[in-house]
């Protein structure tokens, strides 16, 4: 009772509500039951979007069937960038407020984000060869996305590189925040510089230059990719929390036996 009053009192202060939800036990209780549902919906949406895009959407007037790679390439690119924005966000919370859950999230976002960035790079290369005539060119958009991939890899390595995990979390959070400067560079690279990569088809200010029969499967596939990303990250976080608990129990049992 006393404790509840104290918690409620602290809740009014800035950031206190975040402390309330940034508790590994509470996270596990809220998220774990939702995981199977989230996984089922994300697989269904991704399959629907891709099958629609590849089998039913019309071919493009200019690029023909090769343009269908966009139903994988574009969602992967968006998720890769949003994933890094999330990584930078949790790193910010980790540095300023030292949330244990933020460190845990940073550790688990890295590999998933790197995976999506890899899908984006490979699908882009497979698209570039038939259309541009080259798998890879060093233009500003492609290079900045490659830098994003290396930032993810560096973060994955750095956060696990220290004997004391707290040191790893601190160093990796700084890397993630510094690397966030790359995100606006990726987004605006096609406007600031001449690139071989096309300009934006869909922009918030300029609307979309894509026909609805191609836009719908693209949006559904995007939704599927985003949900898959979140589900994978949450599943990894739950597994990491359980792993930590198991280790604590094993250590306690060993101490009792000794």
């Amino acid at each position, binding site marked *: 009772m006393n404790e509840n009053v104290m918690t409620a009192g602290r809740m009014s202060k800035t950031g206190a509500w975040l402390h309330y939800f940034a508790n590994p036990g509470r996270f596990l209780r809220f998220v774990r039951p939702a995981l199977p549902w989230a996984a089922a919906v994300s697989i269904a949406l991704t399959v629907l979007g891709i099958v629609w895009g590849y089998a039913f959407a019309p071919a493009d007037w*200019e690029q023909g069937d090769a343009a269908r790679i966009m139903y994988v390439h574009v969602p992967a690119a968006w998720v890769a960038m949003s994933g890094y924005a999330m990584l930078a966000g949790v790193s910010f919370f980790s540095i300023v407020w030292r949330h244990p859950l933020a460190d845990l999230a940073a550790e688990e976002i890295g590999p998933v984000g790197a995976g999506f960035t890899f899908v984006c790079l490979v699908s882009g290369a497979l698209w570039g060869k038939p259309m541009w005539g080259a798998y890879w060119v*060093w233009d500003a958009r492609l290079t900045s996305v490659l830098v994003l991939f290396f930032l993810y890899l560096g973060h994955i390595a750095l956060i696990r590189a220290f004997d004391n995990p707290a040191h790893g979390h601190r160093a990796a959070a700084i890397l993630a925040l510094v690397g966030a400067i790359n995100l606006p560079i990726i987004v605006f690279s096609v406007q600031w510089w001449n690139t*071989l990569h096309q300009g934006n088809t869909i922009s918030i200010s300029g609307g*979309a230059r894509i026909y*609805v029969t191609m836009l719908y499967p693209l949006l559904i596939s995007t939704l599927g990719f985003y949900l898959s990303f979140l589900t994978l990250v949450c599943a990894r976080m739950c597994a990491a929390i359980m792993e930590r608990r198991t280790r604590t129990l094993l250590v306690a049992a060993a101490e009792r036996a000794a």
Partner: protein
Amino acid sequence: MRGPKKRRLYLVLAVGLCLSAAVGLSLAAFSSTLTFFFSPREVMAKHPAPGMSFRLGGIVQVGTVKTVIDAGTPVTSFRVTDGQASIPVVYSGLLPDLFREGQGIVAIGAMNGGGQFAADEVLAKHGSSYMPKDVEESLKNAGKWNPAYGPAPAASEWNTMQVKGSGS
């Protein structure tokens, strides 16, 4: 929020601000090197020495593409334009499927002695407008858009926009 948290917050914000300024300034300083290609107008202004390799980008000028077969390889000559200047290009070899008049391309090579750009490689740049063939044709027939003159207007305007000129 007080004490060390507030200090850390301000520290992170200050470092972020300095870092953004530093990166922004260096990008502005290197902007010409970060550009993947130069337009004909920029090339005309700079007069690159013959033999100096660079990338030339622009639109294949309508009505300038000529292909002759020389000893089994097609040799194509055309002009690349940005609407303000144009440069003659020669290329021997197979062109990408998307190469056609009015198409954006990037050619890698150097100026030869005769004032022509001798390309070692030609890459096709595709547009950022996606639509089925029949929609493209009806937009073109209605005079609402010609692919040779830039990207299509936003899809939301396709039904409501005014017809500009007579198109074809």
